[in-house]
């Protein structure tokens, strides 16, 4: 399992190619990459703040829970912080398992928990001003699926 919290960009393709290499018991690899979206055409920067220490521990626990529940062979989470421009990758998850259903479900679970239980906060800087991104009820409700 790999957890990285970093300000630098990452190459999702290169990360995915390296992920779970040499594991002959893996039959399925699923990945998700989150990208900075400019919904209204005025976004200049997305600023991501986090809680150093708690962030790494919270993500590690979420990944451990997923690994145990779905019997993952491996899991990867990369999450950035700092100032990001539209189109930049924010984060990625990858899961490796014997079968695809476990890999898909575990990736979905990881995303739901990272959204609401990893201590990150997003602020949008637009040409009209700046505002904190509010958490959505739908994101909290998504946890009930699991």
């Amino acid at each position: 399992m790999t957890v990285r919290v970093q300000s630098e960009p990452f190459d999702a393709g290169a990360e995915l190619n390296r992920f779970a290499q040499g594991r002959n018991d893996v039959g399925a690899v699923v990945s998700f990459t989150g990208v900075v979206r400019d919904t209204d055409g005025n976004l200049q920067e997305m600023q991501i703040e986090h809680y150093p220490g708690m962030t790494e521990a919270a993500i590690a626990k979420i990944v451990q829970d997923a690994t145990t529940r779905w019997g993952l062979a491996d899991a990867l989470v990369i999450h950035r912080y700092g100032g990001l421009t539209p189109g930049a990758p924010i984060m990625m998850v990858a899961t490796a398992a014997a079968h695809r259903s476990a890999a898909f479900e575990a990736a979905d679970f990881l995303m739901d928990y990272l959204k609401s239980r990893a201590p990150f906060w997003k602020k949008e800087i637009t040409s009209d001003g700046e505002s904190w991104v509010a958490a959505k009820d739908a994101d909290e409700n998504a946890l009930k699926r699991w």
Partner: protein
Amino acid sequence: MMNVVYFAWVRERIGLPQEQVDTNAATVADLVEELKSREDRYEAAFADISALRVALDQELADFDASLVGVNEVAFFPPMTGG
């Protein structure tokens, strides 16, 4: 002394990322009341605690949780990761 940490708009309203607070508060809720009585900026940050989350020594907790043995309290809005 308690290390108190603030994130996102809580940090902006209070105007500090963290501070040492001399307190005998028994619970998180008691600490919030102490802080609110200090200055308007704390009152503004803690006006609606249903909009806030709290972590004790970097683990999520409830506002009625005890502060016994706790070194660090963090206040922040609901998280928006991913």
